[in-house]
């Protein structure tokens, strides 16, 4: 039998009890060294310094009582076996302790030295087993995720080959094609795209599960994203003669979210809605605020489809869940779509859920955090407890000169953003975090606490600094405009907080309006 010394940390405040335990331990057959402290804080300090083989813990100490005591020890040293020594035979407390990971619960009056020695030995053994199990489980999950990543990578090579050669033929680069041949090739290509989507989803779901999914939240105007998603899916909806409508609240605040990811969720939900709604049905996409939850924007996709039963509802967001009755033309035949959506929403600290009854359609709702412009503006727009007198919104548009942009566009505009930051007075001007989707044109907004004339001087300075960047002229065009912020001044004025909110609201409206103008000009083909 192992003759290694067992190092016991005894946390016990009653000197009589402590002596008794010490005696029992020393009477045992294996060598034991006992470190006794009388306060929990001393016990935790000792645990920080060195790791004992086991902790013998009295629950009622001068600085902690009952369940709290073992909870704190477990929290502090999760891998050290803990045996509770209690004055009372409390079965309920004992169970609670066990559920939290305590290895044993002994009543002080009842223990013999043999009993105590055995309890300690088994506690150490059990802790070792639990730890080994935990490690094995983690290894299994890691292996599975690595395997899936590897598989999705390897599948790309043959997929690429099929994609390339079918494209070559369809593009007429391998000689003329009979209409029937073209038709068959298009059918193959549809499957190629499906396979591609499945591989992408597999990788993304694996990433989500191993906690490697990353989002890059920015300041986003949801109205635009909803329009984009709907536009992308309108052809599919039209094919089935399904009406696709949008309902967006008038004064929807900006949200703090990753635009590409939010688009992904919207597309997923709308695509599903269309899929599960019979011809001549309708799908409605809405974005609104809920009074009871002012920190979040609520987005929902409702359909007049056949609804979802209670068993399915419970499982629908889990991986690989597929409705057994579904007609399959699935974008992602793997059933991972909703799982991925849930992960994306979770990373944004939002929630996603479905309400549905069989035969009555379904509504999927998810929430995204409101972007609190007021909080960001507060330190900058007020001074000495009072609102500054004037504000100007400066808009800096960086548009790449070629489409697609030449070189590393992200690095280029981030460099510009850094330069802009250096051109403003940090205590009274704020460079707003970048807006919208990183695609091509990047728009930076600066809120300057100044008048229009001085804002003009700042604009000139910004332009001068940007033009100094090597090669910037070959990569992008710079457009800078200024507009005074005409926020509503209440009379009498409300609290400073209300005034700051008023400025924030006005700035938000101006930003949204400017993007609307941009969209309109894109539609007009400017």
């Amino acid at each position: 039998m192992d003759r290694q010394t067992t190092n016991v940390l005894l946390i016990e405040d009653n000197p009589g009890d402590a002596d008794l335990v010490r005696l029992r331990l020393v009477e045992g057959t294996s060598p034991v060294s006992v470190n006794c402290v009388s306060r929990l804080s001393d016990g935790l300090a000792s645990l920080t310094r060195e790791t004992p083989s086991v902790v013998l813990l009295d629950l009622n100490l001068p600085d902690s009582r009952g369940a709290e005591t073992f909870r704190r020890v477990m929290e502090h040293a999760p891998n050290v076996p803990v045996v509770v020594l209690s004055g009372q035979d409390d079965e309920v407390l004992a169970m609670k302790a066990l559920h939290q990971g305590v290895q044993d619960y002994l009543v002080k009056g009842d223990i013999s030295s043999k009993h105590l020695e055995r309890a300690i030995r088994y506690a150490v053994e059990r802790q070792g087993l639990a730890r080994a199990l935990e490690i094995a489980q983690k290894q299994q999950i890691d292996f599975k995720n690595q395997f899936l990543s590897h598989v999705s990578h390897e599948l790309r090579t043959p997929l690429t080959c099929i994609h390339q050669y079918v494209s070559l033929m369809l593009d007429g680069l391998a000689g003329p094609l009979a209409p029937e041949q073209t038709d068959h090739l298009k059918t193959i290509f549809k499957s190629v795209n499906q396979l591609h989507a499945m591989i992408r989803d597999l990788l993304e779901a694996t990433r989500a599960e191993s906690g490697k999914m990353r989002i890059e939240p920015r300041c986003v105007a949801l109205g635009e994203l909803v329009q984009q998603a709907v536009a992308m899916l309108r052809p599919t909806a039209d094919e089935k003669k399904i009406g696709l409508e949008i309902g967006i609240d008038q004064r929807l605040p900006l949200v703090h979210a990753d635009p590409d990811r939010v688009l992904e969720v919207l597309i997923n939900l709308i695509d599903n809605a269309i899929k599960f709604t019979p011809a001549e049905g309708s799908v409605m996409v809405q974005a609104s605020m809920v009074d009871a939850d002012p920190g979040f924007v609520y987005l929902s996709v409702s359909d007049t489809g056949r609804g979802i039963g209670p068993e399915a509802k419970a499982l629908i967001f889990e991986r690989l869940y597929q409705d057994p009755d579904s007609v399959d033309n699935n974008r992602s035949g793997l059933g991972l779509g909703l799982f991925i959506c849930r992960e994306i929403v979770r990373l944004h600290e939002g929630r996603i859920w479905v309400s549905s009854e069989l035969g009555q359609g379904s509504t999927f709702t998810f929430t995204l955090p409101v972007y609190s412009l007021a909080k960001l503006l507060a330190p900058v727009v007020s001074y000495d407890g009072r609102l500054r007198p004037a504000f100007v919104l400066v808009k800096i548009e960086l548009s790449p000169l070629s489409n697609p942009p030449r070189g590393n566009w992200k690095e280029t505009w981030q460099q510009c953003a850094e330069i802009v930051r250096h051109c403003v007075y940090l205590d009274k001007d704020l460079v707003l975090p970048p807006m919208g989707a990183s695609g091509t044109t990047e728009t930076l907004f600066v809120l300057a606490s100044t008048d229009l004339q001085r804002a003009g001087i700042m604009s000139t300075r910004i332009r001068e600094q940007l033009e100094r960047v090597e090669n910037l002229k070959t990569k992008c065009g710079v457009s800078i405009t200024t507009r005074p912020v005409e926020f509503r001044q209440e009379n009498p004025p409300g609290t400073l907080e209300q005034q700051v909110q008023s400025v924030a609201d006005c700035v938000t409206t101006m930003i949204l309006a400017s993007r609307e103008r941009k969209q309109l000009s894109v539609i007009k083909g400017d």
Partner: protein
Amino acid sequence: MPRPKILVVDDDPDLVRALRLRLRANNYEVTTASDGYTAIAQAQKERPALIILDLGLPVGDGFVVLDRLQTSDTLSGVPVIVLSARDPQTNEERALKAGAAAFFQKPADNEELMNVIRVSLGPDATALPAHTAAWPS
């Protein structure tokens, strides 16, 4: 006017053949290499106008090639488009920082790829517009 020369570096012969066909149809001249070492040597000799580079290569992977190109006096100005099966989340930024002009994950959209090639070669490139029939995917 001479056609721009593109060096395609990939160890997948099927993909290389398909790319060569498409690039030629777009009026580019094409040479190929199937490993990192040969790629550098060939680039030095031929001075291509653009390089399409896979990352998973034998004998010096794509990143090694990118590094060597960046540090070469004669080749550091040549635009490099990375075309790889690897995950962009962990590779795109690294590739761009290492000097690549763009990162495409396989299978890449051919139209987008041709566009980026055209733009990277600059306004003086003599390639004709991309030869792709328009059909919905």
